[in-house]
């Protein structure tokens, strides 16, 4: 089953993204606590893309597609046309570094990495594609 959502790049759209993902997972009877984590991971990536890649520009948009492969995997694919993200240049901070620096950011991608089984970022032509993969046991 494949589901699609297209939204403009404003932070006020984040609740709609969460509801969209939560509804699909509930429809497939995905366990509630685990579903909450997947909703969180998608929210984190979308928030990063809206804020950092698209500067909260409402004229830009994000497309989210969810591919639900029963008993195999769930693939969340988020496409945008903003500034691409290079995962190779990302260095995960430690919690103590974050506390010492009094930074409020930096935890989002850490959460996504722990929740998902695989994260891919790639840029092709004018689009950036982020793919989050969760395997089902």
């Amino acid at each position: 089953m494949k589901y699609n959502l297209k939204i403009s790049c404003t932070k006020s759209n984040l609740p709609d993204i969460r509801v969209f993902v939560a509804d699909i997972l509930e429809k497939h009877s995905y366990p509630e606590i685990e579903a909450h984590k997947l909703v969180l991971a998608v929210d984190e990536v979308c928030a990063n893309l809206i804020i950092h890649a698209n500067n909260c520009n409402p004229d830009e948009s994000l497309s989210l597609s969810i591919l639900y492969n029963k008993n195999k995997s769930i693939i969340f694919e988020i496409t945008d046309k903003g500034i691409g993200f290079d995962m190779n240049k990302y260095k995960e901070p430690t919690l103590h570094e974050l506390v010492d620096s009094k930074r409020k950011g930096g935890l989002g991608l850490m959460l996504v990495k722990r929740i998902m089984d695989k994260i891919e970022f790639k840029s092709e032509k004018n689009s950036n594609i982020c793919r989050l993969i969760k395997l089902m046991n």
Partner: protein
Amino acid sequence: MIEISNTEEENVQILKVIGDVDASSSIHLDSALAEAIEKNKNIIVDLGQLNYISSAGLGVFMSYLKELDANSLKLVLSGLNEKVFHVFEILGLDQLLTIKEDLDKARAELNEV
């Protein structure tokens, strides 16, 4: 989306957060916590009616830990539902922050010290 109230008691102030804390609304939690710290009293954040928290909200709590410590103030979070607690647990923040099941236990934690 988010509603925050601050009740001041003799030795503690209680911030009650209702709704969702995400990248859009975390700014309100940030300013409420900054104002509370200025009052120089220990803080309980009642999260019993918090439905959702993302890294933006977690980051707000983390960003004040040094300041709280420097001012010898204590911060206790209370009443987290299971889903919200799991979010703190994923990165081990439940070990870095003081989290109690309910307001009574949060108050007891502050009175013990």
